[in-house]
């Protein structure tokens, strides 16, 4: 699923890995593909409600392998629609239940309210995380996960508790697109560092030039909701 430029997250991970001196192999996984034998990092995007329905069966058939990878500490970034389906379920407005794969202790309920606009999140791990949200499903976190952070601007997981996203093992789940990683290099480098350390034991960072990212962040932070 890639409705909000989520492809940008994959592009940023691959390009930054190169800038850090590594040679990444980017595999695209679509419905019905063979699941790759070896995976170091997983990134997934959001879709419309109709897109979520289309990937549902395929995702459920991958439940076991994804759970094993998650529990083993594989870094993953799941955005919006895939965040919802990584949780226990998505109960739509009309009461039908789309089952998730339950890696994250979260549940999502469809609402008539659409949460749309620029978002700033204060994250204890990654500092200020900037992005854009557009969702009508509202997610609440269970005790098994922590939020990614608290919203300084925007709504986040739901319209009541001021929390955004979820953190579990090396998974980062979030409603933010924008795309998320280009303007949040600290988050991108967490995923990269975790993946590289798991594969090679150590991570030797390069020196990516983040000056445009810094300026893009400053301007994004000042834009209206």
């Amino acid at each position: 699923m890639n409705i909000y430029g989520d492809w940008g997250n994959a592009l940023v991970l691959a390009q930054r890995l190169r800038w850090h001196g590594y040679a990444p192999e980017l595999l695209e996984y679509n419905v019905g593909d063979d699941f790759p034998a070896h995976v170091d990092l997983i990134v997934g995007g959001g879709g419309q409600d109709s897109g979520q329905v289309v990937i549902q069966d395929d995702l459920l058939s991958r439940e076991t392998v994804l759970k094993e990878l998650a529990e083993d500490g594989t870094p993953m970034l799941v955005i919006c629609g895939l965040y919802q389906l990584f949780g226990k379920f998505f109960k739509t407005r009309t009461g039908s239940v789309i089952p998730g794969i339950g890696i994250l202790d979260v549940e999502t309920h469809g609402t008539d309210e659409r949460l749309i606009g620029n978002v700033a999140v204060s994250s204890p791990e990654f500092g200020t995380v900037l992005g854009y949200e557009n969702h009508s499903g509202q997610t609440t976190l269970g005790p098994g996960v922590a939020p990614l952070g608290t919203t300084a601007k925007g709504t986040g997981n739901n319209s009541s508790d001021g929390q955004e996203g979820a953190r579990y093992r090396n998974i980062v789940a979030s409603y933010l697109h924008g795309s998320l990683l280009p303007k949040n290099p600290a988050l991108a480098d967490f995923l990269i560092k975790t993946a590289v350390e798991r594969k090679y034991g150590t991570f030797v960072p390069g020196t990516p030039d983040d000056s445009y990212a810094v300026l893009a962040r400053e301007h994004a932070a000042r834009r209206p909701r």
Partner: protein
Amino acid sequence: MLYFSVPLGKLVRRVSRLRGGGSALPGLVVEKIDPGFMQRTLSTLPLGVAVVSGTNGKTTTTKMVVELLESQGLKVFTNRTGSNFTRGVAAALLGEVDWRGRLDADVAVLELDEAHAVHFVNKVPPRYCLLLNVLRDQLDRFGEIDKTAELLQHIAAKTTGTVVLNREDPRVARIADTLEPAAVNGPEVLYFGLDDSLLSTFPNDDELRAAPGSPVPPAPAKPQADVVLRRVGADDADFEYDGATVTTHMLLRGVYNIFNAAAALTLARAITGARGSGTDHAGLLAALANVAPAFGRGESLVVDGLPLELVLVKNPSGFRLGLKSFPAAGYATMIAINDNYADGRDMSWLWDVEFDTLREGGVDQLTGSRAYDMALRLQYDDVAIGAVDTDIAAALAAFIRGAKDQPKRIFCTYTAMLAIRRELSKITTVEVVS
């Protein structure tokens, strides 16, 4: 009330023009004091009302339909200001009606924003509608593109005569299935289409990142199209209709504009066909060849004796087509990205455009409120960047100064385009749309 509303509305229109702005205010005034004004006035037109909607290409397509119909001797009322809201239509009407509220026209061709079209067609059911596409535009207003498709479906449902649909956009083509059949009082459905060889130049949103087997809504079996675009050349194009292929010179550039010419031909043929006196085909093609782009849409101006082209980009498909239609070689390039309400506040779409075609020459100047988002995007595609300045006037001046001996091209979002035109009008002649 009836006799006062028109003169009063005209007066407000005059005053607000003297003040130099507010094209919609007089429309608001007349709507308030005489809610039936628009419906009453438009219902007098012998060939009725045609609504043009969709996420992309409304302005140029509407302009084409108007010029095609005028070539057939029809008097056409249209909302030329690009004020595509209901009260914008009312305001435009005030400029055209006489003091007793009579409109001297055969047909109205109106460009309507997807969301506002719904309100409009509830008040004034159109005889014709032309639905262009559902691209990932303005999701910050509509949430999901499926929602945008529902808005277009509502326009079609209210149409009494003929619905013209884009055969190649699955979300638009499927609207036909939701309509009452023509035999049971539903509208007639016509399609415009593309030759298979051109399909790959029009990726829809679902296909931007989709490999085979990805979640793309299934397309219905292809219906017969009334007009098919068969080929696009450097300055000509082939259209097929009535069982024959015609080649015509085109002033318009950009494959998406020329595809919309097929849409305009379909609608214009439907309207003139209904008139009874037939269609002057030679006149229609001559008019089509001479259509110039609407302001900012592939428009070419002259600065320092060399062309400066403005290419409006609003969503990933449009930007991709813009890059494909206007090759970078030989041109100095500027990109201006704003995120005001009319542009859409969400910047994620920039990540679904590939900028590798700009890699060889680089981009000379970036500007707009989100210039640094654009810079970051180009950095990740290894495209060299000359300068970045969020101030559009300063950036434009620097760009023109720095590329004095080169033809120039500016890719810009909607409000950035307006700002650039304002600045350019100080140094060159820019088409005035009144």
